[in-house]
């Protein structure tokens, strides 16, 4: 599991509430990513980070913000959750062969009612 944990693993919330998902890694990797996975769309990049306080947008960043105040933690915030944000969220780090492969966490299943 490349030393990646995600919390919470499951969450049910209501439309309009803020939600924060946490990704924690233990191996000091520089690059971290947040994806969402939906049927028919596969994995889509939301935001990524290339260092402490250094982040950038991905393909589907609207409605999401991120923060990285420590190397080991990458937070994803849904500022005002909507039903379209019901999804499975995966965190990933870049590591491995040639340093260009990504390893994923176990995922967070989020339901917005």
């Amino acid at each position, binding site marked *: 599991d490349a030393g990646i944990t995600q919390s919470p693993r499951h969450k049910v919330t209501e439309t309009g509430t803020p939600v924060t998902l946490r990704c924690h890694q233990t191996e000091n990797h520089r690059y971290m990513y947040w994806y969402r996975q939906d049927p028919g769309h*596969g994995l889509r990049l939301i935001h*990524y980070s*290339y260092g402490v306080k250094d982040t950038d947008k991905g393909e589907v960043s609207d409605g999401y913000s991120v923060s990285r105040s420590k190397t080991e933690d990458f937070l994803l915030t849904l500022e005002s959750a909507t039903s379209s944000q019901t999804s499975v969220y995966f965190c990933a780090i*870049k590591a*491995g062969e*040639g340093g260009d*492969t*990504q390893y*994923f966490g176990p995922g967070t299943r989020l339901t917005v009612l």
Partner: protein
Amino acid sequence: QKEVEQDPGPLSVPEGAIVSLNCTYSNSAFQYFMWYRQYSRKGPELLMYTYSSGNKEDGRFTAQVDKSSKYISLFIRDSQPSDSATYLCAMSAAGTGANNLFFGTGTRLTVIP
């Protein structure tokens, strides 16, 4: 048109069969190619990694890349029920930097005992 196309299946085969999974892509800059396996309600796990064209073999798994046709394949020999999962192809253009991956939507495979 999506950058990466993958037949979603589902694909059902008897135990012991040879399985062929495929992806096509449109971006000729892609040169790093990966296959991930994802069991139900789990995170994707890296199965195979290939740089540029050619074949790579690892046990029962063989990854092939044909850059001239923009086509990659994963072959599974002597398939087992434990191979039942969704297989995702992924690819990227650069080995350095954030190296954002582009994913296929995944092919669901069932190996019947």
